[in-house]
């Protein structure tokens, strides 16, 4: 099918983009970033925006800036730019582990990190990363800029805290201290498909004991979420296979699955176990 008619805008500045969003908020104005979700949704007539505001011509939005402790990812940074070489150390390793699970090569060259956040698919690897590392979203409207914690941004299945007249300008992620172990596991039916179940595990070890454990799961839940019971169990304990097994069991037992299904619970447990065991 072909998309319904809309009016197309390609603003050259952020001020113009948010002004357009404000002016046309009542007529379903939508941001167009990579278009890898928006264009198919329009072709299937699941989305019928009155105005499309293409942000690709705004200079600077494709920038990644990296400091000692944080990365800022602009709204037009593509999935393909966020592989293992985008940052040194464990943070870069984690990006690399996630990136090649996102769709296929010709989609990664175009789709954006921030577009994935705005879209808030339950199976989005980048949403999972934002929750796992306590990332923040920089949102802008004609009223100004605000920072939103990932936990407060992702409200539920494909639902975010972004107002209709707001756009994401960038995502901010704290990087991981040297020595942090990072692991990721995803179950999907074929390479590049959306995850059925996935998990991130990161932790450090000091004097033989686990510090700063982070466990996050996605795919099987309506939005990416942390596993506080598993994290509590790991914190201060000595890493060993039995502990990881028990932490994975805790994570799966307490996960609010989209539907009660022993298969999904088992996938969740195995994802967490493999993320923890594979963390290096």
């Amino acid at each position, binding site marked *: *099918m072909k998309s319904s008619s*809309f*009016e197309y805008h390609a603003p050259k500045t952020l001020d113009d983009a948010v002004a357009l969003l404000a002016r046309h908020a009542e007529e379903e104005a939508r941001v167009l970033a990579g*278009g890898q979700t928006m264009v198919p949704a329009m072709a299937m007539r699941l989305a019928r925006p009155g105005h499309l505001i293409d942000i690709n011509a705004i200079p600077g939005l494709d920038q990644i800036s990296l400091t000692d402790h944080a990365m800022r990812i602009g709204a037009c940074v593509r999935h*393909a730019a966020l592989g293992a070489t985008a940052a040194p150390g464990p943070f870069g390793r984690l990006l690399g582990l996630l990136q090649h699970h996102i769709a296929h*090569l*010709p989609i990664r*060259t*175009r789709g954006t990190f921030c577009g994935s956040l705005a879209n808030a698919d339950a199976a989005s690897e980048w949403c999972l990363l934002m929750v796992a590392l306590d990332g923040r979203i920089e949102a802008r409207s004609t009223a100004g800029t605000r920072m939103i914690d990932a936990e407060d941004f992702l409200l539920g299945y494909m639902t975010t805290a972004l107002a209709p007249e707001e756009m994401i300008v960038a995502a901010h992620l704290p990087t991981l201290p040297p020595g942090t172990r990072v692991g990721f596991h995803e179950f999907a039916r074929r390479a590049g498909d959306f995850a059925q179940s996935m998990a991130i595990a990161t932790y450090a070890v000091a004097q033989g004991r686990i510090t700063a454990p982070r466990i996050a799961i996605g795919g099987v839940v309506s939005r990416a979420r942390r596993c506080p019971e598993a994290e509590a169990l790991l914190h201060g304990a000595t890493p060993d296979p039995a502990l990881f097994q028990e932490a994975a069991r805790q994570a799966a037992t307490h996960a609010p699955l989209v539907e009660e299904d022993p298969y999904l619970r088992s996938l969740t447990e195995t994802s967490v176990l493999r993320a923890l065991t594979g963390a290096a």
Partner: protein
Amino acid sequence: MTEPQTRHITLRVNGQAREITTPVRKTLADALRTDLGLTGTHLGCETGLCGACTILVDGRAMRACLMLAVQAEGHAITTIEGLAPSPSELHPLQQAFCRHHALQCGFCTPGLLTTLVEFLHDVPNPSEAEIREAISGNLCRCTGYDTIVAATLEAAAMLRPQP
């Protein structure tokens, strides 16, 4: 809105400047096929899933069904028609596809070739597993993929700078 909005744009396709007036809602794939007559870019699903419409935009593989024609203004586009260096000589990847019978009906082939051109540029010495992952977004209903993988391995060897 009364009249659908249109724009006059210039596209650089296979090294040539081409001007068209297009409704803003038209995808790049439709503009290439219907306005420019470049029907080598195939449309299977129009939702990003099958890979048949993959083209190169500034040298990078992208889905032509997931870009609007107006978004292509100012970018260099290569379609399957522009892959061969001359009318009498095929691209090494095309030659390898011929030799290995890596196509039967040919519907998926343009998208596979464009995807693989970028892939071999990035990964000149790929393993079989890496090739299979690179083409995981290209559906082929005929070949079973084995001949495609074999052709790609051979093309990779042809394209690598000789020591």
